[in-house]
């Protein structure tokens, strides 16, 4: 059951985010029946499923909301923005109940919400609906009493087959209650040629000895009681069937064509008298033994009856033609296996190359082909649309703009773009922060916007799209833009720059992402421009991504995020530096040149000129290990580094390489030069460079050397 509770939990989360989305849409169109219906259905689902999985308070609470939306649906209550806001709060509350259904504090809040709903319902024209607390259905505890004998008539209507009912099953169900004498009445059966095979002409009269009560018996007929004639009477309070000969006497009477309840009742009374006499004679022990025997026979028949079912249990063949929900843990281990497979495959290719066997080469190429497909599919399974977090942003925009007295519209494009789920979940916070900044500092209040000939409602434009193996996300606003003068002033005050430094706009905007920078004159509790942008930058860098800001005063600001599609495999260049192998991620590589060792050696200030272009560079063989620096064959790989192009000197260039990233754990924490390591086909290890950090580190080191 716990597993299903988890399923429900996940589903309820989905429903709640759907609720939020629907309410946001509904806010623009109170009349939209389809959307109102949707809210009703969500509440209904939460109510029904919640109760199934033991979230009783959640279920009761959503029942109230369901009632509310039922009224709105039938136009007795008019939807307004207040109710929508209220419903959103309720959604948040449901989300809390989902975490802890029995929390006393939460229940208090629940009551407040209920009162509110009640008032809404009261104020509406309806008299009928007041919220009714669910009454516990188990009012009666079935008393374990001795057997009684019931007289039952079951005369189904002719059309009973039409709704799929099989009356025989109901008779069978009665027989299961105890011991029964069943009489089939076929008096109404027409002549053979007049029979309509789709109609039911039969009825039954049953004498049933059971320890169940009358309600249990009428429950058997619960689906058919309205269109059928059903009589249930107690023939005797005593266990008549236990009496010798009683069954045959009653049977005889029952099958007498002209019998009725009265005749049977008379017979029963006579038998009852006999029973009380025998009661004295037969010791109680023996009687109960008799009963035991009875039970066992019933049970053994039951066993036989259910035999096919038992076989089914041992060999169940549930067919599932549905989408499969898989736990992300399983996906993760699948991805790990795929990564292992890719590594093993790389080893196979290496062996095939050295062995020069034609057969082996063909086989290994086929295997490579399959592995790639397999890998692509496996990785694709981990991709989820970015839409999943956009809903959160919509809510944020709505709540925040309201509280700041601004009008803001979020336009999201490309939300179907898919990204690795790990990246998506790590992206949520930084993007929230960027949007918060845009609303708080970017978008002006309506009056100001009007004065500046802008539409009163500001727009935040969210755009996600693929670009090669990366995804690019733009978050643009049409707000006030960034005042570069202010930024410079602040940077000066914080000693981030020197007086007289000549900075490009780009460099100025980059200042915003330095730790501790803030230009906001009024520090709000929502955000301070700059406060946190350093954190945003760090988080994006952690995902091997990049951030850049562009802005034009009076027009707006745009933040661009560039992210890899997945974190666990990197397309890279396999190179050697002092005969150790390294991977340089292809995403940052601009171009590759071959250079003369002399040219590197004779360069001044680590800048060389290639084909007329000046490149600053890092001489990796020297930097990594000065003592054994090798100057065999030098290659010059230019990589992009914060909108600049910087060269990296390596020894050999081996090939392009798909690196499966292995965590290097504790090594990584203190050595940020590498994003991870990968195991090559021959079992050797190659580190995967984080080119930005490598350049950061060694160019700072260079400065230190100079000082």
């Amino acid at each position: 059951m716990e597993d299903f509770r988890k399923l429900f939990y996940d589903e309820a989360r989905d429903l709640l985010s759907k609720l939020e989305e629907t309410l946001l849409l509904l806010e623009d169109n109170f009349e939209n029946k389809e959307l109102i219906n949707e809210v009703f259905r969500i509440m209904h689902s939460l109510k029904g499923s919640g109760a199934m999985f033991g979230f009783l308070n959640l279920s009761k609470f959503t029942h109230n909301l369901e009632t509310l939306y039922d009224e709105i649906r039938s136009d007795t209550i008019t939807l307004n923005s207040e109710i929508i806001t209220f419903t959103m709060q309720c959604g948040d509350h449901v989300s809390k109940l989902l975490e802890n259904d029995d929390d006393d504090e939460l229940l208090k809040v629940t009551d407040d919400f209920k009162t509110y709903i009640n008032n809404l319902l009261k104020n509406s024209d309806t008299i009928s609906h007041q919220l009714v607390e669910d009454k516990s259905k188990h009012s009666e505890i079935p008393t374990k009493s001795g057997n009684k004998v019931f007289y039952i008539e079951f005369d189904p209507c002719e059309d009973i087959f039409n709704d799929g009912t099989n009356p025989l099953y109901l008779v069978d169900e009665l027989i299961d209650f105890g011991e029964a004498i069943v009489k089939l009445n076929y008096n109404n059966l027409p002549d053979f040629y007049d029979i309509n095979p789709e109609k039911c002409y039969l009825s039954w009269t049953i004498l049933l000895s059971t320890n169940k009560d009358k309600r249990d018996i009428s429950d058997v007929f619960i689906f058919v009681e309205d269109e059928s004639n059903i009589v249930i009477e107690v023939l005797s309070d005593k266990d008549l069937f236990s009496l010798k000969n009683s069954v045959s006497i009653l049977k005889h009477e029952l099958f007498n064509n002209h019998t009725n309840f009265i005749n049977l009742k008379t017979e029963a009374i006579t038998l009852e008298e006999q029973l009380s006499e025998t009661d004295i004679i037969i010791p109680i022990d023996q009687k109960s033994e008799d009963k035991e025997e009875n039970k066992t026979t019933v049970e053994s028949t039951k066993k036989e009856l259910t035999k096919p079912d038992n076989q089914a249990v041992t060999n169940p063949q549930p067919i599932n033609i549905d989408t499969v929900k898989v736990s992300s843990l399983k996906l993760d281990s699948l991805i790990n296996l795929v990564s292992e497979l890719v590594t093993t495959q790389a080893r196979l290719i290496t062996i095939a190359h050295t062995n020069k066997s034609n057969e082996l080469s063909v086989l290994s190429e086929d295997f490579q082909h399959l592995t790639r497909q397999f890998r692509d599919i496996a990785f694709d399974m981990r991709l989820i649309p970015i839409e999943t977090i956009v809903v959160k942003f919509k809510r944020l925009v709505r709540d925040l703009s309201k509280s700041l007295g601004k009008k803001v519209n979020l336009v999201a494009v490309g939300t179907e773009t898919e990204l690795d789920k790990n990246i998506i979940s790590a992206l949520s916070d930084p993007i929230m922060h960027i949007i918060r900044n845009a609303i708080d500092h970017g978008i002006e209040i309506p009056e100001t916007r009007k004065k500046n000939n802008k539409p009163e409602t500001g727009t935040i434009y969210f755009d996600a799209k693929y670009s090669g193996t990366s995804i690019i996300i733009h978050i643009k606003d049409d707000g006030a833009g960034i005042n570069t003068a202010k930024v410079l002033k602040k940077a000066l005050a914080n000693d981030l720059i020197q007086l007289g430094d000549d900075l490009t706009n780009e460099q100025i905007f980059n200042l915003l992402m330095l730790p501790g920078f803030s230009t906001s004159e009024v520090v709000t509790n929502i955000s301070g421009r700059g406060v946190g942008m350093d954190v945003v930058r760090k988080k994006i860098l952690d995902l091997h991504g990049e951030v850049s800001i562009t802005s034009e005063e009076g027009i707006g600001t745009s933040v661009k995020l560039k992210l890899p599609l997945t974190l666990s495999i990197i397309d890279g260049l396999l190179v050697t530096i002092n005969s150790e192998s390294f991977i340089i991620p292809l995403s940052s590589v601009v171009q590759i040149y071959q250079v003369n060792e002399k040219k590197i050696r004779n360069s001044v200030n680590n800048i060389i000129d290639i084909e007329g272009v000046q490149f600053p560079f890092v001489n990796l063989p020297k930097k990594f290990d000065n003592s054994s620096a090798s100057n065999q064959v030098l290659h010059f790989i230019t990589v992009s580094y914060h909108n600049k192009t910087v060269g990296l000197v390596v020894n050999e260039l081996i090939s392009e390489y798909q690196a499966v990233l292995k965590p290097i754990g504790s090594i990584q924490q203190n050595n940020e030069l590498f994003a991870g390591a990968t195991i090559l086909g021959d079992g050797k290890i190659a580190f995967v460079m984080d080119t930005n950090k490598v350049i950061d580190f060694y160019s700072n080191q260079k400065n230190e050397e100079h000082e």
Partner: protein
Amino acid sequence: MNNKESIINSYLSFKLGNETYAAHVSKILKILQLSEVTKVPNAPSNMKGVINHHGNVLPVIDLNQTLGLPETIRTNNTCIIILSVEQGNNIINIGAIVDEVLNVENVNDEQISDPPSLGANTLDHIVGVTKKDDTFIMILDIDNIFKELKI
């Protein structure tokens, strides 16, 4: 010392320089021949690099240097012992280079005396000393060594 360790009284003894040290067997996962270690640029001097151990990338440190002793001189006897180290709530595996692996010794708790309280740096990591055939064996607290150490 926790219960598990006191139930099993086995210690792996090894040489660091001229001295004999030991670590509780529960901390030892494997002993490997010294193989090729991939160097890590910009690493601390005691961090010798990484090795591929069953598809995982494992850091390798020089235990001599880690304890403030001179760097291990590599001979045919030089070994890597793979240690299971508790760091906070994590358990990580670290390869440690030692001069020579000696033996598995059974030492009862009574046979372990407190470490000498001299001011030397190394002694912080020693939980006790025992004597075997005229040789002093210093028992290392593996978790403690790597608690402060950044690899």
